[in-house]
């Protein structure tokens, strides 16, 4: 690969992902006197939750942008004041172990290749949003709840003029309230959970009254705008034209996600839908490095095997934040600090601060809150069971549920067979969008989800232009064989 050895950047600790966990980890390791490099795809630190506004925007009233924006600003200013080597706008496409260097990261930045190495690697790569498809859900105008938060918080753009907000979990309230506050119209909130489900989750959240209060504020705003909140409902189908979605049909469901008998269907004309079914740890780099994963029965997803400090099954590799197990931004910050202190202790025993009981208590309270909200987003098998055969599961390759059912019916038992037989998961997203639905479908065919690995961690983890890796050849310098004399 066209990387000059002089361009190799070596530090003691490499942190990938500059959200709350990664930023806190980098700050903690750096204050212990270690050299730290912090990589992120975005141009500024903050991750998805503490997301910054584009640098070209001027913030007139920071307080009005909410507590998460302010927390992000505090994090960004701590990083600026620190010795952490922040390398943002870097797209890491390969992470591997190296006998001499420890861990090596290959990244591209503005079309150039770069290579970083460190003895300790702290992965803080966050989550992917789980999105269970329905008939017509791949159309333009239908976006994720996480996508909607990015549009609202960072781009300051409404998803549409009239939007249905659907799915499960606290993001429903955050997004619907954000749309209303931004002057948009929410046609309805379509929630998989019942009032009682929320009340039960709320009990687990009592340790963080500040966050509960915020949620209550969102609900008040949504109610005041007269938005109907449809408990235990789901979108069953979306209609659209050449340009994208034009309407959705919703229907009541039972606790397992099956549509209840007796109708109750409603139709909403909309130009946007934002829908999501919970967050799951992004595992592609862990898979690529060979770290052990385990099935989380609470959140129906894979997560890394780790000790209470964030040490994974691979020496020198640590995880923190939602990528280590979804628990929310507040827990991520403390988790990042703890993982960094563990890394410091492993590299230079005694150099760092002690992990105090107070720090642990803070982590536990925050994690309890995060876990309570996870209960709301577990996968309902009924939602998957009722998906019509024509529903697109793999967006990249246009593979429908019907095609996948056929492949499972003919005996496909693992992701390799599914890929070879249907092309599902072989597109540029590498199975990140369809993997969750695919493994839920597998379980309908008698394959336990905890035995079905929906994706393989392969480089490049993100699409990169081949020219960035090889350099652009100078065609003049390529020796050409003399052309044959024409006969």
């Amino acid at each position: 690969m066209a990387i000059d050895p002089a361009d190799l950047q070596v530090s003691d600790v490499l942190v990938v992902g500059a959200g709350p966990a990664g930023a806190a980890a980098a700050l903690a390791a750096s204050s212990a006197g270690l050299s730290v490099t912090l990589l992120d795809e975005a141009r500024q630190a903050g991750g998805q939750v503490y997301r910054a506004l584009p640098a070209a925007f001027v913030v007139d009233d920071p307080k009005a942008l909410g507590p998460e924006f302010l927390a992000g600003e505090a994090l960004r200013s701590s990083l600026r004041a620190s010795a952490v080597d922040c390398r943002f706008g870097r797209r890491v496409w390969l992470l591997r172990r190296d006998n001499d260097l420890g861990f090596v990261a290959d990244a591209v930045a503005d079309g150039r290749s770069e290579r970083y190495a460190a003895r300790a690697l702290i992965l803080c790569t966050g989550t992917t949003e789980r999105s269970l498809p329905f008939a017509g859900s791949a159309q333009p105008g239908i976006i994720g709840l996480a996508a909607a938060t990015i549009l609202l918080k960072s781009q300051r753009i409404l998803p549409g003029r009239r939007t249905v907000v659907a799915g499960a979990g606290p993001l429903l309230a955050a997004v619907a309230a954000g749309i209303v506050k931004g002057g948009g119209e929410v046609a309805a909130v379509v929630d998989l959970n019942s009032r009682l489900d929320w009340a039960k989750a709320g009990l687990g959240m009592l340790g963080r009254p500040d966050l509960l209060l915020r949620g209550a504020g969102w609900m008040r705003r949504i109610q005041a705008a007269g938005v109907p909140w449809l408990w235990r409902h789901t979108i069953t189908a979306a209609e659209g034209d050449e340009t994208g979605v034009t309407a959705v049909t919703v229907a009541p469901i039972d606790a397992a996600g099956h549509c209840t008998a007796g109708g109750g269907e409603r139709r909403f004309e909309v130009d946007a839908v934002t829908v999501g079914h919970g967050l799951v740890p992004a595992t592609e780099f862990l898979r690529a490095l060979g770290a052990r994963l385990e099935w989380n029965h609470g959140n129906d997803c894979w997560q890394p095997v780790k000790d209470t400090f964030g040490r994974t099954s691979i020496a020198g590799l640590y995880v923190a934040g939602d990528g280590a197990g979804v628990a929310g931004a507040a827990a991520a910050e403390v988790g990042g600090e703890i993982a960094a202190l563990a890394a410091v202790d492993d590299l230079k025993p005694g150099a760092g601060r002690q992990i105090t009981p107070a720090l642990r208590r803070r982590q536990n309270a925050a994690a309890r809150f995060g876990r309570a909200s996870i209960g709301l987003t577990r996968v309902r098998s009924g939602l998957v069971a009722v998906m019509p055969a024509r529903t697109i599961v793999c967006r990249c390759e246009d593979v429908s549920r019907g095609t996948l059912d056929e492949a499972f019916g003919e005996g496909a038992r693992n992701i390799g067979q599914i890929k070879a037989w249907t092309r599902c998961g072989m597109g540029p997203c590498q199975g990140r969008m369809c993997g969750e639905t695919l493994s839920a479908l597998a379980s309908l065919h008698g394959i336990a989800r905890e035995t079905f690995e929906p994706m393989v961690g392969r480089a490049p983890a993100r699409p990169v232009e081949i020219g960035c890796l090889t350099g652009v050849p100078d065609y003049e310098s390529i020796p050409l064989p003399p052309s044959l004399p024409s006969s």
Partner: protein
Amino acid sequence: MLRIDTHISRGPKVTFRIDGQAITAYAGESVAAALLASGLRRLRTSPGGGGRGLFCAMGVCQECVVEMIDAAGASHVVASCQLEVSEGLELRSRTFVDGH
């Protein structure tokens, strides 16, 4: 009409083109967001002929890819949610069916 203009001021106005159509946007916006704000939801065609557009907004799904035409006329496939608008940017949508 979709832009929320309270509490912040956007960057200076910039104009870029997609499939020859001029789009007005503001510095700092992503191409995908600027196109959405201009009412352009469909950005490409899937292998089966279906419309596709912005979905994850964070560079993971690749549903929002467009072609960026550089000064030499070469095209680069980029996720439009990860590309910032800039004056004079030339883009082409992938709304053809490539028979793949």
